[in-house]
């Protein structure tokens, strides 16, 4: 939620704190509220509520789509960033980060000072947090979520501090927590009072993550619970330090590309995005970036991506440091090409896409994707060829033109009856006499997307006296109450 608010604030929609705002996720019965602002919470909007109900409770609510994948990625980044305080951090469930601070607290001047520091830094990022330090991971989890927000718990009073917490603080699933509540066990103390033998028998089949006894032992430190900590993604950067300032980076590029590719190969990675940066002697930095359709570690190919782009870099009075870094990299296994020594065609195509995108920009080379729509221009979503392959437009049931005029061009039409086909039309100051026609094919507007008042389209396939075939449509019909006399448009040309 706070990530989104920060995004909104950056886009200039400030003052979001006091505004009821909710993020929704698609559920089986329509969108469900996923996260809210405090203002929305006060108005009675809670996570888990359906979006329609939330709007009824709070009519001024603003709703937007949640982005759980983006949140996950941001949380992972945050967990890696948190290694500034201790070397052992990991993402812990949705919205949580676990840190093993053993032996690191004295560097910040003690546990309390460390919590202050973490809270301050996160607030500087625009994030609120609830923090707890405890001897076990389970206890820290529970105190952070069910405590006051800044908790420090020492080993002697572990049982006393965690005892009054509800059983949900044991990281149990909804079903198990409900079962315990029905059994009359509300707090951790209640659970500790139950004889171990009967608990073990009752939950013999439960998974370790859902077993109250296991969770209780983990919280009290009777069972070990190591923190699995992800490796930091490797960084790749080749640099050339020059003794004298230079004006043209071209001669340095092959060596830099070779060095970068050797680094990538050593780790089994390939570059998806590379950035060349010039550090000028007057302190300014200028950089160019190029992207690739497929991970690569071919020095020649990487060097070629910057062809024609280096002129755009402003070297000023010369630069004395050049870096070539892989800003995006992904794993790339070595592959054995076929034994018949043919070149890898997919690889060739990916390189072609890279070169064209590097020269004309990443949005220039496009491919058509398919979208479920009957409106001809909406049926195709053009996506950059650098991205993944979208589904292809399937063979349509009715004939469609080879070429589309985008946007459609208005034509003057002579017709025998207003509802009928055109008899003659004037397009680009040329008169076309219609000799054959097929239609109409009626395509209704999409009321769930279009503005109210959008008119339907009646498409006609026509052939003129010179043998050219066109696709015309009439926008609306006479008397549909959505405007005056319907206008005609030229939308495409058939073979």
């Amino acid at each position, binding site marked *: 939620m706070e990530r989104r608010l920060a995004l909104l604030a950056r886009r200039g929609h400030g003052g979001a704190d006091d505004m009821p705002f909710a993020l929704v996720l698609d559920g089986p019965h329509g969108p469900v509220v996923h996260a809210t602002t405090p203002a929305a919470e006060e108005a009675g909007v809670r996570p888990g509520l359906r979006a329609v109900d939330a709007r009824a409770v709070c009519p001024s609510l603003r709703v937007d789509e949640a982005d759980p994948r983006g949140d996950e990625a941001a949380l992972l980044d945050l967990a890696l960033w948190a290694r500034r305080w201790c070397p052992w951090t990991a993402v812990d469930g949705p919205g949580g980060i676990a840190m093993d601070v053993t032996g690191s607290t004295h560097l910040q001047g003690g546990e309390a000072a460390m919590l202050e520091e973490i809270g301050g830094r996160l607030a500087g990022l625009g994030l609120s947090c609830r923090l707890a330090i405890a001897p076990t991971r389970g206890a820290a989890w529970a105190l952070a979520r069910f405590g006051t927000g800044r908790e420090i718990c020492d080993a002697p009073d572990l049982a006393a501090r965690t005892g009054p917490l509800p059983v949900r603080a044991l990281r149990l699933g909804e079903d198990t927590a409900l079962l315990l509540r029905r059994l009359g066990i509300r707090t951790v103390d209640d659970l500790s009072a139950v004889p171990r033998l009967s608990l073990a028998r009752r939950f013999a089949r439960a998974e370790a993550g859902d077993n109250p006894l296991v969770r209780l032992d983990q919280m009290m430190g009777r069972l070990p619970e190591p923190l699995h900590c992800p490796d930091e993604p490797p960084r790749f950067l080749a640099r050339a330090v020059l003794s004298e300032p230079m004006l043209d980076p071209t001669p340095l590029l092959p060596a830099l590309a070779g060095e970068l590719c050797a680094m990538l190969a050593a780790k089994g990675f390939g570059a998806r995005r590379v950035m060349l940066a010039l550090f000028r002697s007057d302190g300014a930095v200028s950089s160019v970036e190029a992207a690739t359709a497929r991970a690569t570690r071919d020095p020649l190919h990487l060097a070629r991506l910057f062809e024609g782009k280096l002129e755009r870099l402003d070297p000023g009075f010369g630069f004395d440091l050049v870096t070539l870094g892989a800003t995006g990299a992904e794993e790339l296994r070595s592959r054995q090409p076929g034994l018949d020594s043919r070149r890898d065609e997919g690889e*060739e195509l990916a390189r072609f896409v890279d070169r064209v995108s590097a020269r*004309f920009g990443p949005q220039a080379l496009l491919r058509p994707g398919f979208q479920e729509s009957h409106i001809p221009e909406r049926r195709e979503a053009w996506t950059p060829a650098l991205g993944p392959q979208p589904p292809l437009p399937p063979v349509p049931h009715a004939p*469609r033109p080879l*070429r589309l005029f985008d946007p459609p061009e208005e034509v003057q039409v002579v017709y025998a009856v207003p509802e009928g086909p055109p008899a003659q039309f004037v397009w680009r100051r040329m008169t076309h006499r219609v000799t054959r026609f097929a239609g109409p094919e009626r395509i209704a507007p999409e009321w769930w997307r279009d503005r109210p008042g959008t008119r339907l389209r009646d498409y006609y396939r026509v052939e003129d006296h010179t043998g050219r075939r066109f696709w015309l449509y009439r926008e609306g019909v006479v008397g549909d109450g959505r405007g005056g006399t319907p206008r005609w448009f030229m939308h495409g040309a058939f073979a």
Partner: protein
Amino acid sequence: MKCADPFAPATPVPDRSPTLCEVFALTPTDAAPTGFVLAQVPDPARGPILWVQDRLSRREGGRPYATGLASLLRRPVQILYLEARRAVDVLWAMEEALGCPALAAVIGEVWGDPPALDFTATKRLALRAEGSGVQAWLLRRAARADLSAARERWRVSGLPSPPAPDDLRAPGAPIWQADLFRARGRMPGAWVTRHDQGTGRLDFGHLTPLADPAPPLRALG
């Protein structure tokens, strides 16, 4: 309405190896050259077709519509589309693409007679196409047939179509008049052509005057 089938004795047309061919449109808005080129793409399943247009070609002739291409060829067609600002960029992209055998064909559209499109440029394209085995097509609109190294030069226009089998007023399967006015290794000539949906190839037939096209529509409804 009786109309002799011009395709009855099919004229044998030699298969040629991939090279550079130029196709001139008689009128810029006619999509017949597009259909003519598309019907000769060797195997659309082999890979994507690269389609490069300069800006004026797109504005005057429209952009390719992938659903329509699929509707002519009766199979989904992969294309890579690039709109370039200048004719030089179109030629650069075509030349880069012709080094890439994974493409099914390379189609470039150039408006008018830009100075960049000279004998040398076409010769480079032709040699690269022959070297890599990718067919290259240059669609020319509002252009004169100046000096060029294209191995075949066609002039293509739409012809009034025969009536559709189930609706006499509707346009039927499209036919095109194709004029080969300059070629290397084969005789120039004029044919009437159509896309054969069964074999997926281009049929060449004798150019016989077809029966009169349908009279213009008068009263309807």
